[in-house]
């Protein structure tokens, strides 16, 4: 079973079971994680689903595409070396992903 652990800016963690094929953003939003806004619903238009991925986990993700990289320069909280937009991270079988949420998305 794939698993995502999201830790908010106050240090509170939520662990979600995730379906392979869904995005990390979808999984979080559908289950009411408020630290991810995702206004555009995953069409890579708003940069409000910013997450900072655990360093080890980050290395295992497929590399991001140019558009995501460019969008990340415009997030509300400045990007860090392991920042991603969670709408672009696909859940895979047996994924055990750890991400931290920025203080704000807008």
């Amino acid at each position: 079973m794939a698993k995502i652990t999201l830790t908010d800016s106050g240090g509170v963690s939520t662990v979600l079971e995730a379906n392979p094929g869904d995005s990390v953003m979808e999984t979080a939003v559908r289950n009411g994680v408020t630290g991810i806004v995702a206004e555009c619903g995953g069409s890579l238009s708003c940069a409000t689903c910013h997450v900072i991925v655990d360093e080890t986990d980050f290395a295992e993700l497929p590399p991001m595409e140019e558009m995501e990289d460019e969008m990340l320069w415009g997030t509300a909280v400045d990007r860090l070396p392991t920042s991603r937009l969670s709408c672009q991270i696909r859940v895979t079988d047996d994924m055990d992903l750890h991400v931290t949420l920025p203080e704000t998305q807008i």
Partner: protein
Amino acid sequence: MAADHPGTGLLIVGASQAGVQLAISLRALGFTDPVTLIGDEDHRPYQRPALSKEFLQDKITKESLIFRSEDYWREHDIDVVKGEFIEKVHTEPDGSGTAYAAGGRTFDFDRLALTAGARARRLEVPGADLDGVLYLRNADDALELKARVPHIRRVVVVGGGFIGIEAAASLHTLGKDVTLVEYADRLVARAVGERTSAFLADHHRRCGIDIRLGTGVQAIVGADGHVTGVDIGSEVFAADLVLVGIGVVPNTELAEQLGLAVDNGIVVDRFATASDGHTLAVGDCANLPNPAPGADPGSRVRFESVNHAIEQAKVAAYAATGRRADYAGVPWFWSNQGDLKLQIAGLSTGHDQVVDRSPADPTKHSVLYYRNGRLIAADCVNVPLDFMMVKQALAAGVDLSADRVADPSVALKPILTAALEGERA
């Protein structure tokens, strides 16, 4: 709250982006009365934007469109009702009342919120009722279109607004022969500036979509009850399918029954409250004081956008909890059209100066709009950083002076950062 009458809390009519956000925001603000969210479709509340894009192209599943899990609604004690069309509503002077569904069910409420959105404007020409003339507003519309896609070759799209262009680009991507006719002399004339319209038309024509501007439809022609073409007067375009995207009409019938002020949408104040002082109206069906930076004082606007539905729903949730919050943020819009990602920040209406900082790359476009020397909006295509910097500048009330941004090789971010630091200093 409202303990002196039978209840039952806040009734939200319309399981739209606005209705869903209102329900979510009410609970987030600690609203403890019952919340019922009624939709007239037989689907769980879902997101519309992808219907003309990723969903139509089979890039995502129906499940991806769903707003929230069943567990979420249950845990937040939000009663989601599907498949009930509210056809009549009655209110008392205190705003409480009863809503009557076409199927016979009734729903009492202490307070009503209208989030019924808008419906596709119908094409009124001979032949418009032929089989194969479709619209694209709801999930069922998209499912019908998708079911027909494998059996068609030639499509005529009527209307060069967002829906028309997005669907045209999607259908072209799916290998269809696409012609788009638009009555106005440019694409998306309501939402983008002239240069952006020209950029979009050039790009989609280069991709192989036949775009005919300044072209009205005289009639839809058919054989054996099925569409075979679109008659523009001077010629007939052959078509196996006609997709009509000529705008929407706000759903204001319930508001009219209640005697609420209606003028291109349900007239509301800054706090999403209608003219009876009780009923809330949010999203595509509402007409509100224009919150865009640089708008004329006193001007009003009706938006058709996700961002607006979300922001105004938050305002309405505050109003329902007896608090007042101003509309936050800057209106923004997006439209994915094939390989193009169009992002719009602010409203360019009434601009008197244009700064075109488009890079040399023919797939990129960035135009900033000014009014009385101040930045009011930007249209950006495949230049997301410009879009985000303009959006942030507008939200912060910071100007990006026209003479400093004209060179596309100069990044906006340092200018914005310096301006923000200057404000703080």
